[in-house]
C-alpha cells in the first residue's frame, strides 16, 4: 500500500477530512483515543494481516511511529 493511501485510511479511522494527515503528526495533537487504538488494531489486521497488540501501539507517539509498525507493507 502507498504511504498516501495509508494516511487516507488513518484519516478515515479518525473521521478527519481525507488528506488531513501528512505523516509527521504527534498522536496527542490529533483525535487519537482508546477507540482509535482499537480501530487501528482492527485496521492493521483487516488491511495488512498484521496482528498487533495494544502494547505495540501504545509505544507510538506519532503517525510516523504507527507507520513503522506496519513496516514494509507501506511503500513511499
Amino acid at each position, binding site marked *: 500500500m502507498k504511504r498516501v493511501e495509508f494516511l487516507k485510511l488513518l484519516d478515515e*479511522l479518525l*473521521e478527519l477530512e481525507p488528506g488531513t494527515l501528512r505523516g509527521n503528526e504527534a498522536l496527542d495533537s490529533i483525535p487519537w483515543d*482508546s*477507540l482509535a*487504538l*482499537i*480501530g487501528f*488494531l*482492527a*485496521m492493521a489486521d*483487516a488491511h495488512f494481516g498484521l496482528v498487533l*497488540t*495494544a*502494547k505495540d501501539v*501504545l509505544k507510538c507517539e506519532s503517525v510516523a511511529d504507527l507507520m513503522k509498525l506496519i513496516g514494509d507493507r507501506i511503500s513511499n
Partner: protein
Amino acid sequence: MLNPMAMTGRTILVTGASAGIGRETALLLSQLGGQVILVARDRSRLEETHSLLVGTGHRIESRDLSMLDEIPNWLQQITTETGPISGLVHCAGMQMLIPLRQVTAVQVGTMMNINLTAAIMLARGLRQKGVHALPASIVFVSSVMGIVGATGRSVYSSSKGALIALAKSLALELSKDGLRVNCVAPAFVKTAMLEQMQELTATAQFEAIESAHPLGIGQPRDVANAIAFLLADTGRWITGTTLVVDGGYMAS
C-alpha cells in the same frame, strides 16, 4: 454420600471443547461420571482434551460448525453410533473488539454464524427423535456482555444477547419434547480468549476490567460448575433462564 450433579449414564456433546470453558466443562462432566462428545475444529487440541478426561466412552468429533445447515444431520449420524444424548453445551464462539465506524455486515455475519446460528442448529439437531434421551438439557454460553455492554463490543454483545433470548423461546417450544434450555453468562474468565482480549486492550483499561470483578477474574471451572448444574438433575426445574456467573461484575 449424595452427588446431586452426577452425570452417570449420560452423554453430553460439548462444542469448543479444544480450550477454555469448553475443555473444562468436558473434564468436569467426565469427573461427574458422564460421557462426552468433544467437538471443535482442531483435532490435536481435542485429543489433548480427551487425554485429560476421566473414564472411558468419550468421543472426538473434529468439525467446523460453519456448515450450519448440516448440523442436524451430523448430530443424527453421531447418535446412531453413540445412542441418544442427554444434552449439549455450546462453548464454541468468537469475540471481537471493534468500533462501530469499522463494523461491516460480513463481520456481523461471521460472529452471528458461530455464536448464534450454530447454537440454533445444534438445538434443532438435538430436538430430533432418537437424538436426545429423556430428559435432555441444552446450555448456551452467553456472556455478561449479553446483558450489559461495553465500547467496541456492539457485535459481540448482540450475539451473546441473542442467545439469552433464544433460550427463552426454545425453552417454551421444546418443553413438551422434554428439553430444557438455559444460558450461562460468565464475566471475564482466564482463558486463551481473555489473553487475546488482553493483547488488544491498554494495560490501564484491562486492570480496570479486572478490578470491576469483586471476586477477581474467573476460572474456567467456575463456569463449568454452573453448566453442569444446569445439565444435571439439579437443573430439573430450571428452563428459559440465564445463570450469571460473574464474580460480582454486574452487581454495580
